[in-house]
């Protein structure tokens, strides 16, 4: 969908309104979405689409996905979460996922930062170096 400049600007304005103490307030987001749907203007879908994208990016920046093959022991989990919070602030939420392709080790992705200690990553790097 072509999102014109005006729709983008309005979506950005709405997004900034949802920011509270530099954090995204879920209630405000829901409220905004309801109001825009109810207003039912011609460019509502465009505004909502861009707004959704901004929210998605913000959420991604503050979500840490930790992928592993086996269940990560509790103390290691705690250590990882503590490290993430120190680096990215208290708003970080952690999600633990299962990914057998890693063979062993843990891959942590926060937004666009990736900490890949898995065996698969090392093997891929080794193969590329040949």
């Amino acid at each position, binding site marked *: 969908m072509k999102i014109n400049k005006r729709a983008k600007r309005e979506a950005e304005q709405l997004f900034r309104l949802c920011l509270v103490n530099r954090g995204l307030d879920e209630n405000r987001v829901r409220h905004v979405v309801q109001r825009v749907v109810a207003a039912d203007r011609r460019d509502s879908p465009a505004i909502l689409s861009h707004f959704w994208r901004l929210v998605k990016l913000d959420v991604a920046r503050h979500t840490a996905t930790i992928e592993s093959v086996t269940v990560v022991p509790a103390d290691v989990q705690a250590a990882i979460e503590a490290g993430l919070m120190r680096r990215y602030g208290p708003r970080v939420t952690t999600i633990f996922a299962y990914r057998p392709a890693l063979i062993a080790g843990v891959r942590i992705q926060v*937004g666009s*930062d990736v900490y*890949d*200690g898995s065996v698969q990553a090392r093997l891929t790097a080794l193969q590329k*170096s*040949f």
Partner: protein
Amino acid sequence: MGNLLMEIEAQIAGARTAAARQNVGSIRELGDGVAKIEGLADAMLNEMIDMGDGVTGLVLNLEETEVGVIILGDYTQLKEGDEARTTGKLLQVPVGKSLLGRVVNVLGQPLDGKGPIKSDITYPVEKIAPGIMRRRSVDQPVQTGIMAIDAMIPIGRGQRELIIGDRATGKTTICIDTIISQAELNQAAEVAGDSSYRPLYCIYVAIGQKQSSVARVIAVLEEAGAMPYTIIVSSAASDSAANQYLVPFAGAAMGEWFMDNGMDALIVYDDLSKHAVAYRQVSLVLKRPSGREAYPGDVFYLHSRLLERAARVGEKYGNGSLTALPIIETQAGDVSAYVPTNVISITDGQIYLETDLFYQGVRPAISVGLSVSRVGSAAQLKAMKQVAGQLKGELAQFRELAAFAQFGSDLDAKTQAQIDRGKRIMEIFKQTQCHPIPVEVQVAVIWAVQNGYVDRVPVPRVRAFQSTFMDFLATRHVELLATIKREHTLSDALKAELKTVADAFTQTWT
């Protein structure tokens, strides 16, 4: 085989260290050689991005939610959602003498099938030009081997001289002749073991040219034995606009290595009009605002930062030089269009080629009146200055009087003499392509013209006279030429010897 196993074992051992933090993003939009990537929060401007499968990208646009990346390589294998990661490195190309004799693309990868380039040193493609204090004034000549240029529009090492003209007027030919002339001089100095002569290495950058044209250039240079002193950097018309946009900068990086290491280099950009068109395409796809003739607003900066990198640097800063010969193709002789006026104001002079002169048979079709070299005779051999100082003025007078001559009116003897002399000078400056003339022979020929030895020769036979005279000098008076070359100036003794030789020749010539 033992080496091979050790290498493999070493690489496996090295893989034990885990990777550090990486920055990744995913492709949101892809088209026309440009990818919009979400993520990549740490990307810097002009950083190299690894798109996977050996494809590299270059960051050109940094926006709030995404990064605009131009793809240098085969972008048909990429798709939306693919992961891309930063490399933390600026775009770099391999540089050094191992590139001489090779044909490479914008990333320094070989295109001639002669094996990989062995080079340890890389230079960044985008670099800030040398500052004011690092430069030195230009006083060493570039002997192009083309008499019209060496006599009247001399080029110095470290100068930027624009070659501008319509299509098919001989712009590339002038550059190829210059490269061949440098190769001959380099070879002669090597054979003679002359360590005081600084060889001039050449870089030919083909921007958006037909592949057949580039192949022809390579064939001509190989036949003339000039390839061992030349690097060819090619981004043909079938390459993406991103490659064509970057290739002159890659060539400039290779030239800068020579400049920083006490050597002289000459770089030919063929041509910058196509370069501006490629940059226009890249900018429009990146949705940057367009200006006059749809070129982006910074098309002047594009060429100025490229051409400013050609300079002569001082002894403490590398003691080398990079001479640039950019080529611009005009449409219908219009030098007041946007890109030509930009580049004219950046360079230190221009050589203007006219279609009319070309079809009249004056080849090279150099318009002496409109061409200028702002470095001028500071970059000329003293001997050449002595004989050729008056030429430009004489030709200017001839052009003014030539109009009268057409009417066939009665002219006084002095005017007639000027017209006759002018016609003969025009004949002398015609030259076949791929046959550069050494400077000492040029000096002798122009001396003969200025002292009236050609005045009695009918105009249609002047070229035959000239070529026979040059053969005569080259076969029977080699020492005279060697003396001129060694002493760089025409002493009275040399002039007397020239007179004897010229007299002897004129007596026997029919």
